[in-house]
């Protein structure tokens, strides 16, 4: 089953990437590696790659880094049990929402005329900072990335929280007897104890960053002037908007290669760390 539904399409996709073909034309023309050459000559490819990388770096810092900080705080002893449950739910809730719905919500928040963000800036006397967040090529990609951090930090936090709960409590008791502060406990017990989960979360986040599509499609469709294109929308645009199915397949092969390599590097890095 896996062979037919997963590996065969991957091989087939590579085969299609060697052709010039459209979805509705009965003929296809063999072009060898020309589609790959075209990708590397296309400026939009480099914009997409840069945006995916930016998304991955910010997501690892915010979702994994900040998520870990939240998890450590919420598992600490300085917050009451009821508050812990409350905040866990509050942070986790956005990840349950559909990306499309969240995208539309943020689309309105960022609206330059009626949006909440510009309204707040005006209210607190920072009216000069008002801009068309999704229409300005300097801010658009960051506006989309910010939405994703809002949505998924809670999800990563919960994964890390579960890992923290599995650390034997005796380790913390021993540290307390030795007079360790909360900071020292976090650095010397919690973080090493959830190392595997941190690696898993980082892999999930990085792979997610290179598979990014819906957020961009809903909020900017790659605009203004391609400033928010990512590899997913770049591929979609080539295949479905411009009928370049072979070109689209070649982009898909590159996305596959990048995510595959990124996972290998991270897993190898994690194994080395364990050894």
């Amino acid at each position, binding site marked *: 089953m896996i062979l037919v539904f997963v590996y065969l399409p991957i091989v087939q996709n590579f085969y299609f990437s060697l052709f010039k073909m459209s979805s*509705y034309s009965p003929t296809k023309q063999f072009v060898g590696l020309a589609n790959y050459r075209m990708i590397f000559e296309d400026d939009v490819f480099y914009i997409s790659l840069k945006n995916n990388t930016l998304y991955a770096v910010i997501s690892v810092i915010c979702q994994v880094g900040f998520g870990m900080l939240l998890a450590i705080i919420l598992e600490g002893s300085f917050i009451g049990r009821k508050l812990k449950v409350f905040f866990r739910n509050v942070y986790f809730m956005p990840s349950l929402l559909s990306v499309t719905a969240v995208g539309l919500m943020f689309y309105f928040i960022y609206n330059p*005329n009626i949006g909440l963000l510009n309204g707040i800036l005006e209210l607190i006397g920072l009216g000069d900072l008002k801009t068309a967040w999704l229409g300005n090529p300097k801010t658009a990609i960051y506006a989309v990335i910010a939405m994703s951090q809002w949505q998924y930090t809670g999800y990563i936090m919960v994964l890390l929280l579960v890992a923290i709960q599995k650390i034997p409590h005796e380790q913390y008791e021993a540290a307390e007897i030795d007079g360790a502060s909360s900071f020292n406990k976090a650095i010397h017990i919690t973080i090493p104890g959830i190392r595997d989960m941190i690696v898993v979360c980082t892999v999930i986040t990085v792979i997610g960053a290179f598979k990014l599509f819906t957020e961009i499609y809903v909020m900017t469709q790659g605009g*203004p002037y391609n400033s928010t294109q990512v590899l997913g929308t770049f591929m979609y645009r080539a295949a479905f908007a411009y009928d370049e199915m072979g070109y689209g397949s070649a982009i898909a092969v590159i996305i596959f290669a990048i995510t595959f390599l990124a996972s290998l590097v991270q897993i190898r890095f994690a194994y080395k760390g364990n050894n």
Partner: protein
Amino acid sequence: MRRGLLILIVFATLISTFLVAEQVELKFLHRWPDPINQPFLENVVKDFEALNPDIKVNIQAISNDPFKEKIKIVLGTSEAPDVFFTWPGEFTNRFIRAGRIMDITDALVETGWIDDFVYSQLEPFMYEGRFYGTPYRIDAKVFMYNRLLFEKAGVDFVPETWEEFLVACEKLKKAGITPIAFGNEQPWAISHYIGTLNQKSVPEDVWLKDLDPAKGTWDHPGYVEALKMFTQLIPYFSQFPNAIKHAEARANFFAGGSAMMYVEIVEIPYVYRDAPVEFQENWGMFVFPNTGGPGNQNYLTGYPEGFVISADTKYPEQSLRFLKYLTGREVGRREYAEVGYLNGIKNLFDEDEVDPGTWDAVQLVMKAEAMANWLDSSLHARIWDVYSVQLQMLVDGVTTPEKVMQEVRKAADRVRAEF
């Protein structure tokens, strides 16, 4: 008696089985899944089925942008719709070249069906001398304006020339009124401006040659001139055009937020549906001003939209019957009454049967010497890809008309090399 009844039942069963077996199912794909058009087309289909019991029509609707993507995919499969929506021009021509659309010339000419249509609205469905579709709604681009805001700014004329248009914009701006509402988040909006300016700024033979992806070189200086004229309008547009949707800009215009907007005549129903009464009673329209360029100044930008039949349909006769009904007189009259659109049938209404706005718009279409197709659907997809990005940059002032055309020429060269 009982035996007779039995024979009758067996006979009736056989007849009904025969009839059911004869009923064919047509797949019908359109692009209006909204609460006004969708129920209308469902009722049209129901009425057609009642008149044609041998045909069942299965409807599928996909909204504008996803439609453009989906149609390319389904036409390459065995699930291609029998009758489907399309925009005439290059959008349709590529499917014709790939043999995906049925030639209906004989059906149109031999039965006299062709005489039902206003020829200028049918002609866009012609490719290399053959007809491939029929118009479902006619469309054209005009400037809609708010008479109250014109009066407030002391603009006591309707602009007919480019110079007058700029004077009106300046007076409005000085009076603290945003002259033109413009929402260009989806760059088809700017394509309507540039398409019109290109047509008016470039000699007709050159312009038509450049629209052909196999021949277009885009090196006439008129294209740069067209963009320079467009840049003269940028100071008069509403704020953040690249971040605003056309519909949002229109809502702001209806609410009195700006004085003019370049709209399609199919948007007139929105005036009566969505605009405040004050606007409904104080709006007017005028055609794009005469630019004095070498292109024909009596053209109107806009093209009809319509339906075609898949070349792979198993039921060409039934599909033709449905197409004839769908784009015919009876549906045309209901179409105006229920959704506000006009189809391409001749003498569909008298003046007293339609609202004055629609009547005026139709007269403008009839007076035009010819229609100029929308720029985005008349261009090869890869040329439009580059053009649209460059035009958005031009709106933001981060490129120049010369650079825009340099990029367009490069894209056109690449496309031309493939033909």
